């Protein structure tokens, strides 16, 4: 072999040796870290003993150095040395505990735009707001219905008999993270600001939730008491108050004339705007996407005495997709992976002893919409016929591998007002389908043909797979011919607004956890089914029932009213429920305190490891 080749081989060998050395060093470092972590518990025990010794020493010193030897049986020099050792060990313990006090969370999410409650309207933006912000009331963790409210910045509340005036007594002694004392003026300011900014932010949450339509005015009754005057009786109001868009802001950091907390705004990383369990200590974005978010425990949090937040620090790591996130939790790069791990991966990870999969309820639903203003779906018989041919079980079992449930009401399981109304039509009930379509003039020789649209850019999970199941189920009736069409999310929304899609699958995640925020989907104008104009009588009946349900706190009555709305929806079939999701999170085995309830909120201040 020539000299140069020899040199190349030598270079390659050197490269291998250097790489191996580096990797070996990394392994040693990693191993040392884990050893350090495991030593923490042992060291903690030692601390107890040593603390006791210190107490003895303090007593002894008070009595004079001459007694020290008598008490401890050691010379003064020996004791000084012991104290130095103790200090070193304490420093090691602190370092070890710091590692135990940080939770690293992997996610594919990113704050869409802002952490200002007057504008934020995305899942992850709301998630961060929930950790750093306080609301007047909050949903009890683990609540099966989402209707169990706990005092938060308000200690109690009551409504007038007409449910249009709500009084709240506020918690006293609460401070914002910067030490500003919280009082009723902050509540009034927060809601006045959210409503004042609605005209300039039509895409913001307060506009989406209709704050300006619901809230007439907010009144300060005294330092720790506020009154909300509503425009109409509204029993789900506590749900609104628990929403992230009702986060109480500190006026000093949230000017009424402008949106705050956008990236690039120096105040974005100012951890003093809110009164939640954590403060935002780092928020770094690259090219409009989060690359670093760090939360530190709020030293002024009102519930510190109860031991919250459990972890001192939360660090979010941002992955580009579900596959990368799965690899990260498997590799141990993160303590926890939440949202957007695919069903296949979740079920696969259940067998991995190095991780733990947590299961819970979900609030996300999907439904089939029909364009009712033109043929073929301007004929109610055709809509009902197609609805009867749906195959929800195959969707749930084959597409979502059992991680979603068939849905027969627009209100998800567990929530007040949930029914099984659409079971009346059945699944793959081709007898009914063929009969109704025959009445409408369709048969094997003259099939019902229509386009079924689905979203293709990942906004909804497993959309293409679902669409294939729908097509197969519909065409198995023998009297339908379905063409699948897709569009990315931006185009899909535009197609929806331009009303060019015959039938399309849409999804919903609630703004506040109450049937009030689901039932209206049957006729929501922004879904553009034109139901309100094509079925005015049914719409009027449903709207009246909906208003009646808003105007009562009687849960039995509300259940009956929502059931009646469902019954009318089954007759009309403009919007047909398909499935409701389940919630899941993946953690390392030593992570505790995960509550996956119908709110789909991740309350990081309850998590420990």
């Amino acid at each position: 072999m020539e000299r140069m080749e020899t040199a190349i081989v030598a270079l390659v060998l050197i490269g291998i040796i250097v790489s191996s050395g580096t990797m070996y060093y990394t392994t040693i470092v990693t191993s040392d870290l884990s050893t350090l972590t495991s030593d923490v518990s042992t060291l903690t025990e030692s601390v107890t003993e040593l603390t006791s010794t210190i107490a003895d020493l303090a007593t002894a010193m008070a009595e004079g150095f001459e007694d020290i030897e008598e008490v401890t049986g050691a010379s003064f020099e020996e004791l000084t040395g012991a104290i130095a050792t103790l200090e070193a060990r304490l420093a090691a313990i602190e370092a070890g505990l710091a590692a135990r006090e940080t939770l690293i969370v992997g996610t594919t999410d990113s704050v869409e735009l802002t952490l200002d409650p007057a504008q934020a309207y995305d899942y992850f933006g709301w998630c961060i707001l929930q950790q750093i912000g306080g609301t007047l009331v909050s949903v009890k963790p683990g609540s099966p219905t989402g209707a169990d409210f706990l005092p938060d910045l308000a200690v109690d509340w009551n409504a007038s008999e007409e449910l249009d005036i709500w009084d709240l007594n506020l918690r006293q002694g609460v401070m914002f993270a910067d030490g500003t004392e919280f009082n009723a003026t902050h509540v009034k300011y927060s809601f006045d600001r959210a409503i004042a900014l609605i005209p300039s932010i039509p895409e913001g949450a307060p506009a989406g939730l209709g704050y300006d339509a619901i809230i007439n005015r907010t009144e300060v009754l005294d330092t720790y008491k506020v009154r909300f005057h509503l425009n109409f009786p509204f029993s789900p109001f506590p749900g609104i108050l628990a929403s992230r868009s009702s986060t109480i802001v500190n006026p000093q950091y949230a000017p009424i004339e402008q949106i705050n907390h956008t990236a690039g705004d120096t105040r974005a990383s100012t951890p003093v705007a809110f009164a939640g369990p954590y403060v935002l200590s780092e928020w770094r974005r690259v090219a409009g996407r989060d690359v670093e978010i760090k939360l530190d425990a709020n030293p002024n949090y009102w519930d510190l005495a109860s031991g919250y937040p459990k972890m001192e620090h939360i660090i979010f790591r941002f992955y580009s997709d579900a596959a990368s996130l799965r690899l990260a939790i498997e590799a141990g790069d993160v303590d926890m992976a939440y949202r957007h791990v695919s069903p296949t991966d979740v079920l696969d990870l259940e067998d991995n002893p190095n991780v733990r999969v947590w299961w819970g309820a979900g609030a996300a639903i999907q439904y089939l919409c029909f364009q009712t203003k033109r043929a073929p779906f301007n004929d109610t018989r055709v809509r009902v016929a197609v609805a009867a041919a749906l195959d929800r079980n195959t969707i749930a079992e084959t597409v979502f591998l059992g991680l979603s449930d068939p849905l027969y009401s627009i209100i998800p399981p567990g929530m007040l007002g949930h029914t099984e109304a659409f079971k009346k039509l059945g699944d793959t009930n081709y007898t009914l389908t063929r009969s109704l379509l025959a009445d409408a003039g369709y048969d094997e020789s003259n099939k019902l043909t229509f386009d079924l649209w689905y979203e293709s850019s990942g906004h909804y999970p497993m959309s293409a797979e679902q669409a294939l199941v729908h097509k197969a189920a519909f065409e198995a009736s023998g009297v339908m011919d379905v063409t699948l069409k897709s569009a990315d999310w931006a185009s899909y929304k535009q197609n929806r607004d331009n009303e060019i899609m015959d039938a399309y699958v849409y999804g919903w995640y609630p703004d506040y956890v109450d049937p009030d925020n689901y039932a209206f989907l049957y006729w929501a104008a922004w879904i553009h089914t034109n139901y309100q104009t094509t079925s005015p009588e049914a719409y009027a009946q449903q709207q009246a029932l909906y208003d009646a349900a808003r105007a009562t706190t009687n849960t039995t009555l509300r259940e009956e009213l929502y059931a009646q709305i469902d019954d009318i929806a089954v007759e009309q079939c403009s919007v047909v429920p398909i499935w409701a999701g389940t919630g899941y999170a993946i953690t390392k085995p030593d992570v505790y305190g995960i509550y996956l309830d119908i709110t789909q909120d991740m309350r990081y201040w309850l998590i420990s490891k």
Partner: protein
Amino acid sequence: MGLRSYIITRILLTIPTLLLLLSMVFLVMRVLPGDPVELHFEKKATPEQMEAMRRALGLDKPLWAQYTDYLWGLVDVGYLLEHGYPNLGKSMQTFEEVGGQIFSAFPATLELAIYSMLIASIIGILLGVTSSKSYNSFLDHLIRGFGTVTYAVPIFVLGMIFQLIFGVYLRWLPTGLRLDPAVNPPPTITGLYTIDSLIAANPVKFFEASKALLLPSLTLGLILSGMFIRMTRTNMLETLRLDFVTAAKARGLKESTVTYGYALRNAFLPILTMMGLQFAILLGGAILTETTFSWPGLGRYTVDRITFRDYTAIQGAVVMFGLFVTLVSLIVDILYAYFDPRIRL
């Protein structure tokens, strides 16, 4: 033509190329279906709100005015000096300056591109030369096979294999991200973490940044090395047969001097040209690599913006990619002229 005249001519020729690129990007963005203002709103806004948004984004102006604004923004030196990046308009989704977003993502892509190109060149050229020297031997076949496999395997497949081996099973290297969030980035000077941490004399951060960079750059570098191996081998085989190589050997020069000092230098020109072309491919590959390794660079940014149909951002990213490739082509042409005086004739 002297080298200086050639460089000036080449730079002047770059201007119409860039103008054509900018015009095409602008026009393509405008003829795409969909009203970006309408797309912005989740639930339909009122016509007044839509108009206000249109005005805010400058979309109420006639097309020619938008075009001149766009071009003026790119050459607005005052803006450039004030912000440190050109005026590429505002994102239609986040309303942040697109120039600022792109320049915050660009260093990550540049760092990945530099290290990948370095890996690809070293592996490609060394193996290519070795292969040509061992013509038709087992080693030659082995290297050619290696080149074909690395060229053919998709980036995300190779990336995931590396993630599984070094991240999940061995746990030696992180499966993604540019830096462990527990480690603060070094003070920004170049934006390249490895360089900045060296400037800051911080070996821990350099080690962390290198650890994160190793898998993505190795993935991209290996994929690109396949083409370099084949190109180097072919050119070297032709050059080694030429008379001047035989003459050099006959004069008793050392084998390594003949191979690397004479033959490779002559065979290097086509490889250099290909390096310039490969840079465009490298940027395309960076999009996939960045997605696979959750690398917060320009490629991932572009994919994100496409999902949101953020026209100004896509336009800015394409312009940036175009400028980058044009600049690299210019440098390659100048180097080519330097190495081969015939080009200047």
